[in-house]
């Protein structure tokens, strides 16, 4: 996978319309690009697991603190050395012009 993104933010969030806006809004506000988003429901569907692929940056600390404060965010983990494979397959699909 060919980009410089090297950090993954893994979130467990409540699953309802609007949650994504709350999260992406924090990035929009700081003009901070999201390199990849992977999201799917877990358990009974009332929650989702979300992976955000981002570049490491000075502003990341502030964004993470703001994400932690979001009402619908239940858990957050930040991985600096992420498991490439999570996004690799996704990347293939996106690149493969189908």
């Amino acid at each position, binding site marked *: 996978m060919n980009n410089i993104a090297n950090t993954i933010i893994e979130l467990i969030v409540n699953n309802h*319309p*609007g949650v994504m*806006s*709350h999260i992406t*809004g924090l990035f929009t*506000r700081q003009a901070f690009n999201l390199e990849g988003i992977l999201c799917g429901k877990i358990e009974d569907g009332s929650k989702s697991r979300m992976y955000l692929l981002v570049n490491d940056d000075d502003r990341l*600390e*502030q964004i993470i*603190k*703001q994400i*932690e*404060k*979001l*009402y619908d965010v239940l858990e957050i983990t930040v991985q600096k050395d992420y498991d490439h494979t999570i996004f690799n397959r996704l990347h293939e699909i996106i690149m493969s012009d189908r």
Partner: protein
Amino acid sequence: MLAGAFFTYIEGVIMKYSGAEITIKLLEKEGIDIITGIPGGTNLPLYSALAKSKIRHILARHEQGAGFMSHGMARSTGETAVCFACSGPGATNLLTAIADAKMDSVPIIAITGQVPSSLIGTDAFQEVDIYGITIPITKHNFLIRSAEELLRIIPEAFRIASEGRPGPVLIDIPKDVQLEMIEIESFDRSFEEDDLPIYIDEVEIKKAARMINRSRKPVLYAGGGIILSGAEDMLLNFSHKSSIPVASTLMGLGCFPSSDDMFIGMLGMHGQRYTNYIMREADLILAFGVRFDDRATGKVKEFCPNAKIIHIDIDGAEMNKIKKADIAIQGDIKQAIKQLLPLIEHNDRKEWTETIMDMREKHPISKTTKHDEQLPKAIIKKIGGFAGEDTIITTDVGQHQMWVAQCYPFSKPRTLLTSGGLGTMGFGFPAAIGASLANPGKKVICFSGDGSFLMNIQELSTLYELKLDIKIIIFNNRHLGLVRQQQEYFYGKEYIASQFYCKTDFAKIGEGFGIESYDLEMAENPFLTLEKTIKKEGPVLINIPLAPEENVTPMVAPGCANYEMIGGEINE
């Protein structure tokens, strides 16, 4: 249903309620006794339920007015306040008040009507995505999808608005949800009172105490957080025990008695010369309940360049956001000071106290000449002299706001209500109405400018109906004064769009609304008229003509360091 028996229900007997009735019932349960707002098609079911409630409704004349009235209630009491608006324009008119509450950490709940769920997303009449629009300006927001959800979300909204760092919550309720009938057995919710302050890690507190005890020139930089946590008495003890001078932010004014020897004034862009100089000298800054706002710090790199920093705030996201702290502690400031106090050594800091006295002598509060004080400042001090320490002051935004901040003798928390973070013109007057509603028996004085007052002047009509003990003082320079001042200082005196070419007769306008009004231009003895009219009960409007050239000094140019001040010298 029997009239008057609307909300009585018998335990164990299942009754049917509409979403609107549930909402009002839950607001009653939260202790709400006043709601400000304006009705419209999409919130009429809520109003219909309100008609049968003991909650009093205050009809504003503009939703922004309703929003800022709720600020007045919340800011003056610390309790969450509620405002209503209909969908579309009603909701968008609330936006400025919501954003203002986010910036200044004010617990308000805005409840908006929304078009029926089936019409959402169809560009229906008066449909606007207020949920989407308010994401960045609320602490949290909700779009309700069923009457059932209200039972959980309304109490949750109150918890969110007031818990930790307070802030605004918006609840958008589609009309069909307001009308939906559901069976309810009991409104009693399981209470989880976990309000006990969280104990702060003793290791961090000990480190901080050691740093304070070792410091030779500490300064307290105190902010709105002190007031929000009710830590003013703790702060006073703390400052006195270790002889630490207190500089306040705009939002912190009132957290420390301005007459106390340890008080060194407001810091920052319009702080006094000595205040900013003392900050620069400091070897330790105790940043308590503050967020290093640019108006307070000036150029951040040069803010207190010689000082270590201990930052304590309830919001972890404020730690190291602007300025890296040597010790950063997340927690309730009252709890933090309580734990710090026994570890702090008694110290009279003779040398430091003398330096401070010396600076105060050399760079005292500015006067236009050696003898005469600027007229607006003289008026503000005069009023401060007889108003009494419980009087609540509200301001609008501009030069008049800064004059009030610089020289009104605040001595109690929640006696200054001002739009700090957002700096919203039009804030002061509706906030005064809210403050007066929530504090019967207390006098409220609103200091405004002619520009700001025009932005919510329609609420004179509301004031007339309510007959509250509010005094409106308009400093009328026929300019957007602070804009004119910036054009004078920083734009080569190229004045554009900062002057009003009309001479508005505010006294006549006031009378037109039925409000007793005065114009001091006509008064034989202006100061006497001022005192007599302010001491009266009931609403009064007073217009005070000012020369447009009266500037607020000192002033730090935006982007400059705090020690680089323009004006404010004794021999100017």
